């Protein structure tokens, strides 16, 4: 058995003697382009990566990082562009081929088979090639032990432990060791520390340092500036599917990176006529859930409060907890001074809360049913006598909101699946406006819809606030947050880490609160 430490650094050369050494990048990507329907997920992205290099891949939610990784892992096929290994173009039609080529993408949720041992998990799929059969349990165990020892994890992982008993960090380790055992040369880690404790993360960093010396090329996707500072040799920034920076880490300050990620020209579609009233409409105090520790916030009548933060910060879950659809373990929610019972969406609707969830198709719309049925779903009780729905009244109300929100549909009876994304979103909003809510929670209301529809929804939010509605807006689009909100609450890891008034908020201030580690922020002052 070869020792990785002695062969790793030169493996590329050893295995490919005919290729020019040292300057040949291990992985080269050129002109990578990928579209989904009318969304440009990636446009002409290219960079190169040498063995032993750690490249930090950063970008806002939806910037194209995941798409890029999925192309590398063989899950997606690029529409255009080249992926080359050792200078030779490769095309993957399946994850298996990508693995055979030496590329491994470790996803945020490691794929561990829960019911089998660590040893089996390590050699999953590679069993036949490695030449031992299913029955040789002892061989498998010995082999696993050797492998773990070789990579320095004999103390961290018990090869006979079942997959389901592993901690998130251990799962991550199993995936990494599995990749290394299969002689991966390019390792892509997608936010690997999102479920790790600080100590576990430190171990991972030490491992990455070691892999670096072994000549393995690493793509490290993370939102966390501290990790990027600690690990990366080079930083590639994606924005809206395009590469906006590719530079050595030394040339980019943290603040600079943040600016590159968000820096877009301000569109002039956002106007607010501010009309915040005195009366507190929504009050949340001390709300605890499995993901949140003691959330306090309030929204006044006529106020738009934005919850900013990254995906995974717990914003959507907080919205659902307020609405009663995510377990509220403690704390109070008051609407107009009256307490809303926990964990009961029906009671929340009765109390005047409305939630247009993030996942329009998955959580809000009944796609195969009509615009009308989707609009009136929560208010059928008010539209009926003795259980029978008043058809004419229902249609009148449905039509009223179609007109008011300018929902473009051939008729009220059109299947909602056939509408455009923007019009679907309007149907969701129409549904909730029809309940005449006091508090409207909008979770990513403009995700995946075109600019025209976005502008209409912005205008609508402004109008609704003008009528005295309290609006809680969750958005990952900072422009939206800055343009619409009267106040911005920034969340990170289930906590509210800061509050900014509209006047003082900047994209940078928000991103810093959302991303930069707190201790570091307080220790070094302004980051970077």
């Amino acid at each position, binding site marked *: 058995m070869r020792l990785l430490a002695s062969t790793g650094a030169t493996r590329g050369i050893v295995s490919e003697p005919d290729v020019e050494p040292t300057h040949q990048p291990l992985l080269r990507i050129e002109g990578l382009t990928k579209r989904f329907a009318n969304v440009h997920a990636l446009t002409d992205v290219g960079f190169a990566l040498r063995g032993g290099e750690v490249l930090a891949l950063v970008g806002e939610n939806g910037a194209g990082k*995941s798409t890029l990784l999925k192309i590398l892992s063989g899950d997606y096929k690029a529409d255009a562009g080249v992926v080359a290994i050792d200078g030779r173009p490769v095309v993957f039609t399946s994850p298996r081929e990508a693995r055979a080529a030496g590329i491994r993408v470790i996803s945020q949720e490691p794929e561990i088979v829960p019911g089998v041992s660590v040893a089996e998990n390590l050699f999953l799929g590679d069993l036949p090639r490695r030449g031992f059969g299913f029955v040789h349990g002892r061989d498998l165990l010995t082999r696993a032990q050797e492998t773990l020892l070789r990579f320095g994890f004999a103390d961290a992982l018990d090869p006979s432990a079942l997959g389901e008993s592993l901690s998130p960090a251990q799962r991550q380790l199993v995936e990494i060791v599995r990749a290394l055992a299969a002689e991966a040369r390019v390792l892509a880690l997608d936010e690997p520390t999102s479920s790790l404790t600080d100590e576990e993360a430190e171990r991972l960093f030490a491992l990455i340092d070691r892999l670096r010396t072994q000549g393995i090329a690493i793509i490290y996707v993370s939102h966390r500036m501290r990790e990027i500072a600690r690990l990366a040799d080079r930083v590639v920034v994606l924005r809206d599917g395009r590469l906006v920076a590719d530079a050595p880490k030394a040339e980019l300050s943290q603040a600079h990176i943040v600016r590159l990620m968000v820096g877009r020209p301000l569109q002039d579609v956002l106007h607010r006529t501010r009309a915040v009233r005195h009366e507190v409409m929504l009050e949340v105090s001390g709300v605890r859930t499995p993901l949140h520790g003691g959330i306090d916030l309030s929204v006044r009548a006529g106020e738009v409060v934005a919850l900013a933060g990254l995906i995974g910060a717990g914003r959507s879950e907080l919205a659902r907890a307020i609405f009663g659809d995510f377990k509220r373990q403690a704390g109070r929610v008051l609407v107009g001074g009256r307490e809303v019972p926990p964990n009961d969406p029906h009671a929340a609707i009765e109390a005047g809360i409305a939630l247009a969830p993030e996942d329009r*198709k998955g959580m809000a719309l009944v796609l195969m049913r009509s615009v009308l049925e989707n609009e009136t*779903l929560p208010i059928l009780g008010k539209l009926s006598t003795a259980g029978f729905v008043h058809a004419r009244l229902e249609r009148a109300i449905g039509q009223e909101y179609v*007109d008011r929100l*300018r929902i473009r549909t051939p008729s009220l009876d059109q299947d909602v699946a056939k509408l455009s994304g923007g019009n679907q979103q309007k149907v969701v909003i129409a549904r909730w406006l029809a309940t005449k809510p006091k508090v409207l929670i909008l979770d990513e209301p403009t995700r995946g819809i075109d600019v025209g529809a976005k502008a209409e929804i912005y205008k609508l939010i402004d109008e609704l606030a003008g009528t005295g509605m309290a609006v809680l807006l969750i958005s990952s689009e900072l422009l939206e947050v800055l343009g619409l909100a009267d106040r911005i609450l920034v969340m990170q890891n289930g906590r509210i880490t800061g509050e900014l008034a509209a006047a003082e908020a900047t994209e940078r201030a928000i991103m810093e609160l959302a991303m930069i580690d707190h201790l570091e922020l307080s220790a070094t002052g302004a980051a970077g």
Partner: protein
Amino acid sequence: MTAAPSPAPTATAPTGTAAPSPLRRAFDAVGLQNVSLLIALALLVAIISTQTDKFWLPANLLNIGVSVSLVGLVAIVQTVVIVSGGLDISVGSIAGLASVSAALALQATGNQTAAGILAAVVAGIACGVVNGLIITVLRVNPVIATLATLSAFRGVALLLTNGSAIGVLDEQFNEIGSGRPLGIPFPIIVLAVFAILVHVLLRYTIWGRNIYAIGGNPIAARLSGVDLNRYRLAVYMLSGVGAGIAGIVLTARTHSGQPQSGSQGLELEAVTAALLGGCALNGGKGTIFGTMLAVVLLGTLTNGMILLGIQSFYQLVAKGALLVLAVTIQQYRLSRTGVQTGTAFT
């Protein structure tokens, strides 16, 4: 980018008040699925008519009606279950248990017709409650849950009767099977009335509308304040009612409480009819009208095969083939329309 996102001109798309042509409206009202069923039925009838002149005899037509009454009753409730996103394959066993219950109740009360009817319906509801609780409280997948009770309910029916049929001598009760008010066999009347009631329930009440929503997208329904478990429980109870009534008709037609014969295999035909009638297997779509068309189609097919003297074993093969066909058609449609609803972007 440069185009100012100004509000759309006021000339928006035509609204619900604009009337399309009457023909178009009739077509829309019946629906594409139903039109294809009607065409299939017409073709089938045409083929049978060329082979035999017995088909159009009034006695034969009524015979078709009577013979589909059992399937029809369970297919109606199966439609509701499937629309809600579930499946109930225990309906045949429930019908058997209800039949036995009716016969035992008649025996015990000295032929109190009402007691027989009540016993069958109560037995059906009780079975429905069992199914519903297994599915909502124990969170067992509906297919598995009702597969289990398909066996268990049949077992209970056999236990109650020691495996044999129980004779029913109440003539008033047996009238339900053989009576002909206004010349129409009673089972057909029972079926028609039940179909209309459930149609109204599904189409015009909050309850029915919420069933469509639950089947179409349970999360959306939940976030709209619909109590999913309460509705699911009710759906399986209704299923029990339908199967219970089928049990009454079965008992009255055979003049006996039948634990097994006559109700075995009803679930297959009920599911086939519902899917052929346009129910989406994943829920959210389906109508009683479509299901009834499919029931008639299946009944006509069986009748035709009998008239043409085709060995009855072939009917079983044909029924199985039709179920596959129904689902295949559905998958094909899904694959065509599913494209626009799927998003791969993260």
